[in-house]
C-alpha cells in the first residue's frame, strides 16, 4: 500500500480513489471537463477484472450503474452538468429503490451547452434532487485533490451504509488541477460490507426471491417507504454532517464550498494582512447541510457572505440555516467565472464599511 504523496489531477484522484474504495463497475460517457475519469477507468478497470463500459449515453450509463449495483457491485458513473441532467430520472429511481451508487459531477458552466469552465451552478440539482419525487442524495464537495480522493472514497462507504446515491460535486477547476495527494488504502473486495438486499447468488443461500423496485401503487405504503428513507436522511444528518470552520471571532463570516472556498480562503489571507478578521465556514457535505453548525455562528449576528459560482443557490441553504439571525450577503458568479480573492475581499470590506 503506497501512502506516498503523489502529484495527481483531481479527476485522476477521483478515479483512483474509486478503484481503491472497491468500485467494481464503472459506466461513463465522455464529456469535458471530466474525460480523465473515464479514460483512467478504461485503462485500469478491465485490467483488474472489473467492469468498464463506455455507455451509449449518460442515460444508459446511470441505468447500467443501477443494474450493476442491484447485482451487488460498488458502481459508479461520472459526468458533467448536461450529462448529469440526463441522469436525473435514473437518480430518482436509485433513490426510490434504495440503491447505493456514486455519481461524480465535474460541474461546468450552464445552463444548456454553456461552457466547459468551472462552475457550481448544479447545487440545487444536487442537493434537492433534480429528479422527481421526494428524495435526496448525499452530496460531498471536495476543495482539493486530496479531498477528491478522500471524499470519493467516503462516498462509496456512505452510499452503501445509508443505501442511497451519493454525489461527488466537483467542478472544472477541482477536476483539472494537480496537487499532492496521499491516496487511501486499497480495499479488499472480500472485506466490503455484505449486501443482503442485492439480487443474484440465491443458489448459495436458498433465500426468498428478492425484487428490487421503486413501484408501489398503494399511496400509504409508498409514503411509508419514503418516510423510512427520510428517517435515514435524519440519521445521516446526525452522524455524517461535515464542515470546516476557521476564524472564531471574525468580523464577517464567509460561507463557501469547493473552489469558492479556496478563493474565500485567499480573501481571508488577504484580510489578515490588513488586520481584518474574516471567518470561513466550508460545508463539506452539502447534503446533509451543516445548518445547525452554521446557525450557531449566525447567532453572533455578524454579517455572512456567501461566495458561490452560481447565482444564488448555496445562499438559500445559508438563509435557511441562519433564518434571519444575521444579515446574509451573496457574491455569486455564473457561466464559468471564478471569483478572485481580491474581489471577495473587496466585497467583505464593502459589507463591513471598511473601504
Amino acid at each position: 500500500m503506497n501512502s506516498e504523496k503523489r502529484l495527481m489531477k483531481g479527476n485522476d484522484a477521483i478515479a483512483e480513489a474509486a478503484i481503491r474504495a472497491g468500485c467494481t463497475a464503472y459506466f461513463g460517457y465522455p464529456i469535458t471537463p471530466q474525460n480523465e475519469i473515464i479514460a483512467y477507468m478504461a485503462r485500469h478497470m478491465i485490467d483488474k477484472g472489473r467492469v468498464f463500459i463506455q455507455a451509449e449515453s449518460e442515460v444508459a450509463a446511470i441505468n447500467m450503474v443501477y443494474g450493476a449495483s442491484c447485482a451487488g457491485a460498488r458502481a459508479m458513473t461520472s459526468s458533467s452538468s448536461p450529462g448529469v441532467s440526463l441522469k436525473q430520472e435514473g437518480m430518482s429511481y436509485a433513490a426510490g429503490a434504495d440503491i447505493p451508487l456514486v455519481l461524480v459531477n465535474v460541474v461546468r458552466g450552464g445552463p444548456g451547452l454553456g461552457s466547459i469552465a468551472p462552475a457550481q451552478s448544479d447545487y440545487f440539482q444536487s442537493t434537492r434532487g433534480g429528479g422527481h419525487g421526494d428524495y435526496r442524495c448525499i452530496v460531498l464537495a471536495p476543495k482539493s485533490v486530496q479531498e477528491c480522493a478522500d471524499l470519493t472514497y467516503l462516498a462509496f462507504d456512505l452510499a452503501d451504509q445509508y443505501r442511497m446515491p451519493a454525489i461527488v460535486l466537483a467542478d472544472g477547476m477541482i477536476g483539472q488541477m494537480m496537487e499532492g495527494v496521499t491516496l487511501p488504502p486499497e480495499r479488499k473486495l472480500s472485506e466490503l460490507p455484505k449486501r443482503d438486499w442485492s439480487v443474484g447468488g440465491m443458489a448459495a443461500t436458498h433465500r426468498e426471491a428478492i425484487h428490487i423496485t421503486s413501484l408501489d401503487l398503494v399511496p400509504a405504503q409508498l409514503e411509508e417507504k419514503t418516510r423510512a428513507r427520510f428517517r435515514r436522511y435524519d440519521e445521516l444528518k446526525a452522524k455524517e454532517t461535515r464542515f470546516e470552520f476557521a476564524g472564531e471571532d471574525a468580523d464577517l463570516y464567509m460561507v463557501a464550498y469547493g473552489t469558492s472556498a479556496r478563493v474565500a480562503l485567499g480573501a481571508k489571507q488577504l484580510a489578515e494582512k490588513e488586520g481584518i478578521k474574516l471567518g470561513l465556514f466550508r460545508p463539506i457535505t452539502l447534503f446533509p447541510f451543516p445548518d445547525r453548525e452554521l446557525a450557531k455562528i449566525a447567532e453572533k449576528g455578524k454579517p455572512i457572505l456567501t461566495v458561490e459560482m452560481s447565482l444564488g443557490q448555496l445562499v438559500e441553504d445559508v438563509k435557511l440555516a441562519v433564518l434571519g439571525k444575521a444579515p446574509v450577503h451573496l457574491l455569486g458568479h455564473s457561466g464559468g467565472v471564478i471569483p478572485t480573492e481580491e474581489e471577495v475581499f473587496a466585497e467583505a470590506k464593502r459589507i463591513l464599511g471598511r473601504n
Partner: protein
Amino acid sequence: MKQLYGYPESLKKVQTKYCGGCGHGIIHRIITELIDELEMREKTVITNPVGCAIWADLYFDLDSVQPAHGRTPAAATGVKRVLPDHLVICYQGDGDMAAIGTAEMIHAANRGEKFTTIFVNNAIYGMTGGQMAPTTLIGQKAATAPLGRDADYAGMGYPIRVAELVAQLEGSRYIARGAVNNAANVRKTKTYIKKAFEAQLRGIGSTMVEIVSQCPTNWGMDAGESIEWLEENMLPFYKLGEIKNTLEGAS
C-alpha cells in the same frame, strides 16, 4: 395418472393483473417452464419492463430488478456483467423497447451483451391505455392515432420490424420471432427461447426472441377476436421464424 402439463414452479400461483386473454401470461409461463427445466430458478435475474408486465415481482419466484421505462437493456447489462454466471432475462414491451429504449436495445445488442431479451410485441402501449407503439400497423387505431396510424399525411412513421433491425448488429447472435396465438406457435416460441437461454448459458453474445402477442383490451376486442386480428394483420407483417442464428461453431 401422469401429469403432463402443470403450473411451473418458478411462477407464483396468484391471479395476474393481466386482462383476460392477454399474451403476457402465456409468455410468463413459457419462461418459467424453461427456468424450471434448466434448474436455474436460483440463478436467474429478470429485469422487468415498465409496461403491463411491470409486476414481475408478483409473478416470478426469482430475483428481479425493475429499471426505468425503456432502460432495461442498460440495467440488464449492469446485472449480467456483474453476475456473468447467472441467466439474465430482459423482458420488454414494444413501447418500452422500440420507442424510448431504442438506443439501449441497439447498443446492448451491438455490444453482444450476454443476456436474453424477451420482446413482447403487441403493437400497442398496453399499460398506458392503447397509444400507438413503434410496432403499431399502418391503419391500426390507437389513442394517439384516432384515425389509424398514418405514415404519410400525419407523419407517424412505419411499423418497425425490431427483430430484423437488431439482426443487423454483429453482436446479436440469435434472433427469432414467435407468437402465442395458438398451441403450435406457443410450443415453437418455447423452443426459440430455449435456444436463446442455452446460448446465453454457453456465454455467446446477445440473444432475443420477439413474441407477437395479443392485447385484447387496447385493441378493443374480446380474446377470440384478438387472436383472429393478430393472425390476419400482424403475422403477415411480422414473419415468424428464426431471423438470425450464428450460434453454430460458437464457443
